[in-house]
């Protein structure tokens, strides 16, 4: 009996949601602006507590996205045997005093919870989310969006797409993809690349270093998608030029 229980526990596969509210998958179409969606851990007992925690996270996220400075860099070393990461270090700076401002200005527009996570959408107090955006959308009905392979172009905005592999906790997958999307925007804004190649009769080596120093304004998540077959999470974000 114990062996059976152990086998079942080891082979337990986390059940990821296949349906999401439209405001989560197409956040750029939400009628209330500005808005922010935070993904936090699932409620353990009191759902309201999880929603309150998610609301605070959403306000923190909105403060960060209002104006955020990203500095740091990463370096790679390319050899005949492959390219290896030497290291990376990044710092994000934002005005944390804006969190209280958004806590007073925002309210919970909608929330969505399942066994894996709680997702909270926060926006201006004087705005109500439209019924259309509250509809549930199944991932099975959506084809791969075009922005996965080719970024949209719009005057006045810089777009960035981020992706993440599947982690045990679905919230980690979405958060990782979202972070990668705004880091992609930061690299379009302010990057310095240095490279040195060395080649002799026996081998070829290539050392590359990038320094990032960018300030992003009014970052917003536009869309999300999940490839259930390859288990990849995608997020599209944009920032004002």
């Amino acid at each position, binding site marked *: 009996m114990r062996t059976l229980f152990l086998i079942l526990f080891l082979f337990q596969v986390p059940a990821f949601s296949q349906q999401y509210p439209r405001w989560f998958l197409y956040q750029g179409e939400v009628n209330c602006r500005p808005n922010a969606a935070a993904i936090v851990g699932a409620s353990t007992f009191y759902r309201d507590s999880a929603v309150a925690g998610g609301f605070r996270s959403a306000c923190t996220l909105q403060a960060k996205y209002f104006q955020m400075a990203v500095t740091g860099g*990463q370096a*790679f070393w*390319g050899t005949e045997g*492959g*390219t290896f*990461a030497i290291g990376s270090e990044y710092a994000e700076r934002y005005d944390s005093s804006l969190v209280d401002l958004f806590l007073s200005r925002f309210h919970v527009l909608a929330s969505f919870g399942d066994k894996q996570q709680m997702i909270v959408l926060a926006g201006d107090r004087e705005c109500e989310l439209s019924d259309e955006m509250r509809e549930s959308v199944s991932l099975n009905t959506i084809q791969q969006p075009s922005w*996965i*392979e*080719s*970024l949209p172009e719009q*005057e006045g905005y*810089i777009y960035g*797409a*981020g*992706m*993440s*592999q599947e982690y045990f906790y679905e919230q980690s997958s979405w958060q*990782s993809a979202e972070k*990668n999307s705004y880091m*992609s925007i930061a*690299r*379009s*804004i*302010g*990057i*310095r*690349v*240095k*490279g040195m190649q060395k080649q002799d009769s026996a081998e070829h080596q290539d050392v*590359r270093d*990038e320094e990032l120093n960018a300030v992003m304004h009014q970052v917003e998540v536009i869309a999300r998608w999940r490839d259930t077959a*390859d288990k*990849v999470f995608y997020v599209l974000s944009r920032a004002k030029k």
Partner: protein
Amino acid sequence: MIDVLFTFPSPNSSEVSMRTLYSLFTAALLATVIVGCGGSEPLQKTDTGDIPDWYMNKPEDPNYLYEPATATSKDMQLAVDKAVQAGRTGIGRQVETKINALQKRFQEETGIGDDAQLLDQFTQASKTIVSTSLSGSKEKYKKIVKDGNNWRAYVLVEYPLGAAQQALKEQIKNNEQLYTRFRASETYKELDSEVEKYEQFKKNNAQ
């Protein structure tokens, strides 16, 4: 010797254990021979259908520089980061080549090679342009595929050439000595013309 190997005495405890040992040794030897002679597995192939067309055939556009790149990693985002950085580094080299060519033309036409201080100022201006003017570069296309146990990322990085030329022109204009020396040269007039075309291109794209 052969008699010892193939003649088994009547069983007792030590002799049974020796027989067991012989059997295990023979089985292990046979297994090693079979596996060793089995041949190696063929190298894993990537389906050529996975390679995007824009990676094999780089786009051509007089207003942009393009650099395709690919990289692998067990971590998906790291594969993308490696590939994008490789693409940007390649573009940096393309820009450096063009700026170096421009620098040589300025030198030949204006003779600033004789003026060490002016040459040094212009060289500094060129180096600054190459290392900082990649702002505005972006990942035009991106594709992620599975390659064995790794993720492989294909990216195409795009960079507006006019941005580098515009930055170089600004650097020259900000240096009075350089500007005085260069503004009458044919090379500077060509650079000016290219920058005007780029600005018109930006206006047309904005409409």
